[in-house]
């Protein structure tokens, strides 16, 4: 027993020592990739490393990053959430409708809810749609891919139905109705930092604390790593599953609010393919799609890598088609590195 244990661990330690630099690069690959991206584009274009450009990029990161946090929670659980882009659009549309006023026909009045109420209602809607995903997956045992694919279409369809395909413009509200301030989220800054980035940072820190320090975080890693073992250890696996999809829904709604606020408009076709960007950010950040492995820090780096790369390519004038090719190559490279990193432990068995 000890004979078999000891050599294995020493062999491992030795391998780690021998590949010290390689391992460091592998572990921190998203970070080094980000540094490399910034360095390369700063050299290639004088417009890249400027305050104005960083503000543009960070507001893009905010939307993708918030979606990716939700996606990370679902992926840690061993699932996938394809509906985040649609929930984002639906939330934006609902927020837009609420800002434009809700007409209650029988009473003949038009209600203009204040901005905080719009935010709360929109998040509640995101939670509702997310929990539908969760219930489908946890209780009715629909595979996550299929359940969220269905919800993706339904939510998008509802957003289109509500608006007839049109976009709500001018969401800034009117002072006499007391519902101004919707653009605060997307436009304002606090100490030079955009509010949306602060929202992202707050959400990332809270999620990081939840994952590393709360019992829920431990339950999530355990049920993603081995649901049966977690169940037998008394982890409420179904509750965990429903909760992560609900949280993903809420975060999608927040992302929808941020995006609508940045654009001061909300359209039903917003956030198309954003779910794929979010998945890419999580994967580049080192999370395993099989569940149980991944961190918020990695996911944030993943979101930065995607946005900073795409933006840099735009600035140096690479065609949009090539941008797609580059993004795809980065994703595949990331997954390739994941299999190098996790492959060893699997092959050992």
């Amino acid at each position, binding site marked *: 027993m000890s004979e078999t244990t000891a050599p294995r661990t020493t062999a491992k330690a030795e391998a780690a020592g021998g590949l010290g630099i390689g391992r460091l690069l592998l572990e921190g690959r998203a970070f080094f990739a980000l540094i490399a991206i910034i360095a390369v584009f700063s050299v290639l274009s004088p417009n890249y490393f400027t305050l104005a450009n960083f503000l543009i990029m960070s507001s893009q990161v905010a939307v993708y990053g918030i979606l990716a946090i939700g996606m990370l929670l679902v992926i840690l659980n061993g699932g996938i959430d394809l509906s985040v882009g649609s929930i984002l659009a639906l939330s934006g549309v609902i927020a837009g409708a609420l800002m434009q006023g809700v007409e209650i026909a029988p009473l003949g009045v038009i209600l203009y809810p204040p901005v905080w109420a719009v935010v709360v209602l929109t998040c509640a809607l995101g939670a509702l749609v997310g929990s539908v995903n969760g219930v489908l997956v946890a209780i009715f045992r629909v595979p996550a891919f299929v359940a969220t694919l269905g919800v993706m279409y339904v939510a998008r369809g509802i957003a289109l139905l509500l608006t007839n395909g049109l976009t709500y413009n001018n969401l800034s509200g009117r002072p006499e109705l007391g519902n101004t301030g919707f653009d605060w989220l997307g436009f304002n800054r606090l100490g030079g930092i955009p509010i949306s980035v602060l929202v992202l940072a707050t959400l990332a820190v809270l999620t990081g604390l939840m994952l590393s320090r709360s019992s829920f975080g*431990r339950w999530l890693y355990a049920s993603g*790593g081995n649901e049966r073992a977690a169940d037998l250890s008394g982890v409420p696996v179904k509750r965990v599953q429903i909760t992560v999809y609900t949280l993903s829904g809420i975060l999608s709604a927040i992302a929808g609010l941020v995006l609508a606020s940045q654009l001061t408009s909300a359209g039903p076709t917003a956030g198309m393919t954003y779910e794929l960007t979010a998945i890419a950010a999580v994967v580049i950040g080192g999370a395993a799609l099989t569940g149980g492995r991944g961190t918020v820090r990695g996911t944030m780096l993943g979101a930065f890598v995607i946005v900073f790369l795409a933006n840099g390519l735009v600035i140096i004038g690479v065609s949009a088609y090539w941008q797609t090719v580059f993004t795809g190559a980065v994703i595949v490279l990331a997954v390739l590195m994941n299999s190098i990193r996790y492959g060893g432990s699997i092959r050992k068995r």
Partner: protein
Amino acid sequence: MNDVTQPGSDPRGVLLAARNVSKSYGNVHALRGVNFDIHRGQVTTLFGENGAGKSTLMKILSGVVQPTSGEIILDGQPVTFASATDARDRGISIIHQELSLAPNLSVRDNIFMGREISGPTGVDFAEEERQVRKLMADLEEDISPQTPVDELRLGQQQIVEIARALSVDSRILIMDEPTSALSATEVEVLFRVIRDLTAKGVSIVYISHHLEEALQITDHAVVLRDGAMTASAPRDRIDLNWIVRNMVGDNYDLGTPPLGYGFGDVALSVRDLTVRDPAGGFNLVDRLSLDVRAGEVVCIYGLMGAGRTELLETVAGRMRAASGQIVLEGHEVSHLTIAERIARGLALVPEDRQRDGLVQTMSVGENLSLASIRSFTRGLFTSTRLERQIVDSTIRKVTVKTSGGDATIGSLSGGNQQKVVIGKMLATNPRVILLDEPSRGIDIGAKGEVFRLLADRAREGLAVVYSTSEVGECLSIAHRIIVMHRGRISAEFDSSVTKEQIMAASGEAMVA
């Protein structure tokens, strides 16, 4: 090592031999200068604890891996196998320990996977089916060639695996734990097939943890320990004690029932528990009643399919009971969730530690503390300090050999992994602990440690219920032995019972 016969002293009967074979992975020596002879038309059994190097040796002999040094001699000529296919072409085939069947395919397609019989119009399914029927008739199994493998129970899948190896006409057949999921009758049939094969001149290499069973079939025994051969001898010169002595180095002891204290009140009481088989047929557990007192150790013995696992999993809350009561220290718990039962002091250590016991993506420490997270959560957050205390004290109490709580689960041996699963449940401070085959797949040294640990906790007032399919393990620490057969208790004994009495009550015929 006076038991070692001189290698090469009788080269006439040796078909395949390993001479001074070593295998290293990095600086880990899996095998060190091993000599191993396979005798023509005889059964050679390889004994050894987990990690002794049995599987590595078999992989070398079947061409899956190459030795670092030493040579393989086939028919008196040194050979090198380029691959497993190369070895198979030379007449060596192997039944691996883990099932390697495609569950979605039929029995026929599995048996002929990769070497389909071609006819004029593609695959000749009729001929394949004819051959499968013949194989199944030899194995006395009523399995249709068209049945998808995932509709078969585990034992039958193992039969299919065996049939696949038999369908290749090989001169040497290596069987790595072929009987782990077979019933006593199926083992008997397999042994008959092995005897038929040896009569035809086929040589068999047999590996089993089930020592008594292996002794019935073997002609030669070879024992490995720590990658080196410790002994080898023909059947007439060995017995169980000889094998165990050479495997572990000295006499082993699975313990005796802890004595010198009185039992407490009834801790767990099961009343008329019935569990239905979702597939129909017999009830898995049939109106079963059982009382276990605090401090008592109860062993449940039974064959595969006797309902042991179903009984334990229903009591723990994994499966639903159709009727009956489960009472823990006077409180009815049948309506509670698994988590609530754990909180009340009822814990289960599941049978399959890889599938149900461990989270491979988490560290040793995180696995150990998984079931007792609430006890070190203060407010919203977990306390790193309290968690470390729990992990460190559990590692000490259950004597897990590990570099610490941060080690990965994969770095532990099977026995230590099992201790992690047991430690995880003991950390919840249970009143009753249920263990489903706690000794499965761990070596004798670790078995003894696990049983000693349970006996110590029983002395402190823990009610222990464990199940086993090895009779020898009933006669270790159990105060009371319960035999299950078809979902019911067919007999109940105290610790003075003999192995024969237990086996007779389980419906198991003594294999001659």
